């Protein structure tokens, strides 16, 4: 089992490296090598590590383990084909992990990252509408059943494309350097990540790698259906590159604009879900 987790974390970090590379090339910069995020994780693993004097030590350390723990659980939920409601819960609870990272150190930069994380809670609502609509269409939230439904009716990407777009935006809101990345924007140094260094930062990198892998794999499983594993990896890479294009050409929104846009997306999704509910017998 552990080898699957390691593969997911490493591949996720590779995708994040590719993300930086694509953004750099679009902005006519050479950019870092695509394995840079893996090197970062390894480098931080061997750097000197301690706990800041102002930190809540137990929370400061514990939150790293919780972050790795919840995304490891999400990985197994997706691979076992269990309820995507659990994946939804973990996605939302990741917000609390961001709060924990930001607030545990006592740093004002981390604190503002944490406060912005609360404000950006609107990004989770489109995911809720997407999941409700998937239940409306397929009659189940178990990933195995959703895959089986797509085996009969075709990919949900073509049956209900607005929900695929909503999920795409949900993943976009968690991508670094994106329009919704207000929790780690540069005026806050690194936002909620600012005060975690050394091996704690390596743990955070593993969390990020796992999160990226799980969200992209879930997107493929929910909207494309059952495909061979190598094909899933290729589709994940294509989806990631499309996310990188969006990140490269869009400026970072202000916190309130970010919430407004996510609210508007939710409103549109609700209208579309209402329409589906009306027309589906």
């Amino acid at each position, binding site marked *: 089992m552990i080898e699957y987790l390691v593969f997911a974390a490493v591949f996720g970090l590779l995708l994040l490296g590719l993300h930086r590379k694509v953004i750099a090339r679009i902005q006519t910069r050479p950019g870092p090598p695509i394995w840079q995020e893996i090197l970062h994780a390894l480098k931080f693993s061997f750097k000197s590590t301690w706990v800041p004097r102002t930190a*809540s030590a137990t929370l400061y350390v514990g939150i790293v383990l919780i972050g790795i723990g919840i995304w490891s659980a999400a990985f197994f939920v997706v691979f076992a084909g269990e309820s995507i409601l*659990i994946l939804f819960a973990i996605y939302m609870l990741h917000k609390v992990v961001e*709060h924990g990272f930001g607030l545990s150190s006592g740093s004002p930069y981390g604190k503002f990252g*944490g406060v912005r994380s609360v404000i950006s809670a609107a990004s989770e609502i489109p995911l809720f509408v997407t999941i409700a609509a998937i239940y409306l269409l397929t009659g189940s939230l178990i990933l195995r059943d959703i895959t089986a439904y797509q085996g009969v009716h075709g990919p949900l990407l073509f049956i209900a494309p607005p929900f695929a777009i909503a999920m795409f935006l949900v993943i976009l809101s968690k991508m670094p350097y994106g329009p919704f990345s207000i929790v780690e924007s540069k005026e806050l140094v690194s936002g909620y990540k600012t005060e975690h260094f050394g091996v704690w930062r390596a743990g955070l990198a593993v969390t990020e790698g796992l999160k990226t892998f799980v969200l992209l794999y879930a997107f493929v499983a929910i909207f494309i259906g059952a495909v061979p594993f190598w094909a899933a990896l290729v589709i994940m890479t294509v989806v990631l590159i499309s996310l990188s294009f969006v990140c490269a050409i869009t400026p970072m929104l202000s916190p309130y604009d970010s919430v407004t846009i996510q609210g508007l997306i939710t409103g549109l999704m609700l209208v579309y879900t209402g329409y589906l509910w009306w027309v589906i017998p």
Partner: protein
Amino acid sequence: MSDIGGVDLFVLEFGDILHYFTPYSLTLFIFALIFTVLVIVARPERQLDIVFGGDAYYAKKTPISERQFRRFMAIACGLASMGAMASGDIFNYTLFVSMVGITNVGIVAAVKSRHVLNAAYEYGIVAMVGTLPLFGGAALILGTTGTLSIPALATGGYAVPLVAKILLALGVTGEGMAPFYAAKAEMFRAPGAPYVIMCSLSSLLIFLRVVEIVITI
């Protein structure tokens, strides 16, 4: 019963009231438990504030009396969240949700900061107003179906009005989810994590549970 949260792992009967765990509700329960333990064992952070107009900064300490009260309220909030995750009865669930709202105000009520106290007051008003649709939704469900047991309602033999589900979800949203959460974000400025984190965690957990309840019944 619909298995949107996975198959039942555990059921405890109290007469006609059931408490149960699905993989979904168990995940949420464990998360609440972990953070409640963290609140019990962790010392609070000492928030650094920068003095404008100079290079100085100072660390805020949480006094022991304030820490004891906030820790108590945070533990109560964790217990209420765990109750809301395990409950199989809509009325019990709404009671736990109301308790979460009260304890959230309590967690920051001892902080001596005008800004934080104003935010807590505003949140308290929104949460109080939120209890109207919350209990209204539960009352409508009882009035139309004659039961508040989630497993019984999930069997499909009852026609739960859509408006009751909407009211229930609206009531929980009023306890601290978007778009009624602006004051809660300001409450987060209070020093003393992990206590303030319970404010956010409890809101997320009760919202996640109401999603399951609304889809199930």
